[in-house]
């Protein structure tokens, strides 16, 4: 590595070998100061004398963290700009863009603090990624001669980072909005309340909103029940398609229908489930069974696809060895292939559970939508009976924008309650996101384990 590259850190940068660099640096510095100003002001406010007198230690810590988070964007802004300038030397255009971002950040900060915070965290993330990336490529030859090509690369990289930023941004934003409402009581209280759209608001009492545990249990029960149906069906279909079927017309028809089923919008599955299980021939009312069955219809293609892929990824040598020992086909499948593909199959099941957890409209239509008034968690026996509303996180969350859209002309006290419900729904979404991410992480770990085992690395 070139020693000069190592020295040219922040200090070398500000000494300025070129005027242009100096200009960009000062522009970035100024925009950083502008961006951090709300945070500094907030910090001064909460450190002023009356602030000390009133606030407890906890709120002081919260306030300080809060303002530090507001200052963070300026640092992030600075680092992003610095790294980009250094590695691409785009000069003027880049500095103007970054100043634009800074101004936007300040405007957003004044309009909506949470959004500003989220953008700040995202900038920090992008900067970290950029620095990581740069350290690796620092010694390498730069192969892009023109500004157009540099700009194109920059745009590509930005859109690559956008995916991470969208996910992390949603997580951070929801976490910030949810943080005042997340408490031990909220997480463990099984009483729950929700309301019908626009009609009854008695479910929300201003004193207690109930907890989220009831919803989480309901969601997990539904997802588990749906996997109970979809897993054997999906695994059987996957084994047939991967091991037994030959390439003929029938197989291609089966595949075509699996793809069609995967493409059917969930609202249609929900509607048919509603018509058949809830009000139609079966007349079960909203129930765990009806909801689970309808969800299973939706999840089945996922299960088949992932299980088939993981069965197909088992090397042929496993099968040949088993056949050579005199095993029949079913014995081979059961004892050699399935065992090797097990982590992949578990991945499929977990992803299916994740999708079922996040599904809303099917659940709302078949497993229960909007009871009125506060409720307690149904007992174990009740949950499995018909005509029983199953509380689910997604429907609980969904009610928030619907209530808000209906409550435009309501009285102010009602509106306050609705806004409180809305904030609690954001807290509920945070819980849902965490559950979903945990399941996804487990699925990814299982799949990595499979690929490591099969490739022998």
């Amino acid at each position, binding site marked *: 590595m070139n020693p000069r590259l190592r020295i040219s850190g922040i200090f070398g940068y500000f000494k300025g070998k070129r005027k242009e660099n100096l200009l960009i640096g000062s522009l970035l510095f100024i925009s950083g100061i502008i961006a951090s100003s709300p945070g500094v002001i907030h910090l001064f406010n909460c450190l002023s004398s009356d602030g000390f007198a009133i606030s407890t230690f906890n709120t002081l810590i919260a306030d300080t963290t809060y303002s530090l988070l507001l200052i963070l964007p300026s640092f992030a802004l600075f680092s992003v700009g610095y790294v980009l300038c250094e590695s691409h030397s785009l000069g003027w255009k880049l500095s103007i863009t970054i100043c634009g971002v800074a101004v936007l950040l300040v405007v957003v900060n004044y309009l909506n603090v949470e*959004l500003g915070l989220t953008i700040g965290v995202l900038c920090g993330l992008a900067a970290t990624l950029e620095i990581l990336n740069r350290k*690796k490529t620092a010694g390498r030859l730069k192969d892009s*001669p023109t500004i157009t090509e540099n700009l194109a690369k920059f745009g590509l990289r930005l859109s690559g980072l956008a995916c991470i930023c969208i996910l992390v941004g949603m997580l951070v*934003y929801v976490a910030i909005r949810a943080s005042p409402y997340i408490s031990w009581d909220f997480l463990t209280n099984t009483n729950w309340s929700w309301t019908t759209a626009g009609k009854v608001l008695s479910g929300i009492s201003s004193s207690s909103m109930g907890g989220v545990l009831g919803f989480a249990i309901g969601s997990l029960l539904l997802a588990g029940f749906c996997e109970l149906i979809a897993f054997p069906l999906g695994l059987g279909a996957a084994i047939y398609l991967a091991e037994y079927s030959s390439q003929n017309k029938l197989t291609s028809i089966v595949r075509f229908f699996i793809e069609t089923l995967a493409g059917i919008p969930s609202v249609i599955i929900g509607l048919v489930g509603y018509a058949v299980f809830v009000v139609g021939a079966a007349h079960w009312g909203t129930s765990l069974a009806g909801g689970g069955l309808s969800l299973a219809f939706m999840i089945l293609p996922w299960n088949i696809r992932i299980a088939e892929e993981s069965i197909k990824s088992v090397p042929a040598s496993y099968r040949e060895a088993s056949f050579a020992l005199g095993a029949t086909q079913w014995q081979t499948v059961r004892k050699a292939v399935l065992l090797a593909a097990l982590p992949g199959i578990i991945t499929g099941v977990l992803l299916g559970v994740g999708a079922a957890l996040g599904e809303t409209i099917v659940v709302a*239509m078949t497993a229960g939508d909007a009871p009125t008034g506060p409720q307690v968690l149904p007992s174990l026996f009740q949950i499995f009976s018909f005509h029983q509303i199953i509380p689910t996180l997604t429907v609980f*969350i969904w009610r928030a924008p619907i209530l808000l859209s*209906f409550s435009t002309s309501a009285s102010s006290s009602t509106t306050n309650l609705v806004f409180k419900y809305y904030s609690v729904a954001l807290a509920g979404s945070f819980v849902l996101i965490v559950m979903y991410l945990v399941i996804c992480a487990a699925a990814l770990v299982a799949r990595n384990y499979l690929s490591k085992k099969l490739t022998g690395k």
Partner: protein
Amino acid sequence: MNSKLFKENFVKAILFLCALSSIGIVFFIVFYMIYLGYPIIINWFAYGFESGVLNILPYMFDSLYLALGGTILGIAIGIPCAIYLAEFADMRLRNMVKPTLEVLNGFPSVIIGLLGFTLFVTQLGRFGLHAFYCTLVGWIVLGVMSLPLIASVSEDSLRAVPQDLREASLGLGATKWQTTIGVLIPSAFSGILTAVLLAFANAIGETMAVLAVIGILVPAPITLNPLSQTNSITALIAYGYQETSVGSARYLALFAAGFILFIMTALTNLAVRAIAARRNRMVSVRTNRA
């Protein structure tokens, strides 16, 4: 030995039944919709979509318009992302972004809808209206939802382009960017098109995210203005099923609307299948020639 053979065949039969189950489910769903909605469907196809109990035409148009805008937004970010991941990114970044795309792909749509509502509907509402429900916000939300699918499928197809093509182009003195634009994208075009069409079909059928950002149903005329309030077939069904009494004409019309929605998504999926078949044929021709 005979019992062993019997067992083998028995297992095979059961597995075959499992494979057939999805055919059964699809037939069940489609026939149920036709069974309940056929007078209205026939009426629509015979006398035009504006006739009958329910004028479905604006809903169809709005669904397609929403999905189109959302997919275009998804393309605008997703395909550059795919190109970057396939051609420019180092392994470490790619190993970070790929799982992110998968996680994002199955992300609970209701949360994306709620965030779209929070960030755009109420924020835009500050500048005048109480709450700013419009097509534009629907596009943004659907764009976020279609981004991971477009990015990951197109990345796979870009990666599947044979290494020879890259080397030949670079050997002729083209830069990496020229190679990407001139060689890689044309040869991965069918895969990218598949990704886009799949995302489009998903966007047509998306319910929750759209529902949160388009607000309550209002009878709106067909308009191309992205700042006006909009509807969709999915929202029609999702709001309608509780408001109509079971067995009424309006209730049956929901099933007819569901059938129309199914036709729209199924046609898109058929197009995907046709493209895939064509690509397979071309690949086999290419390998035969070689």
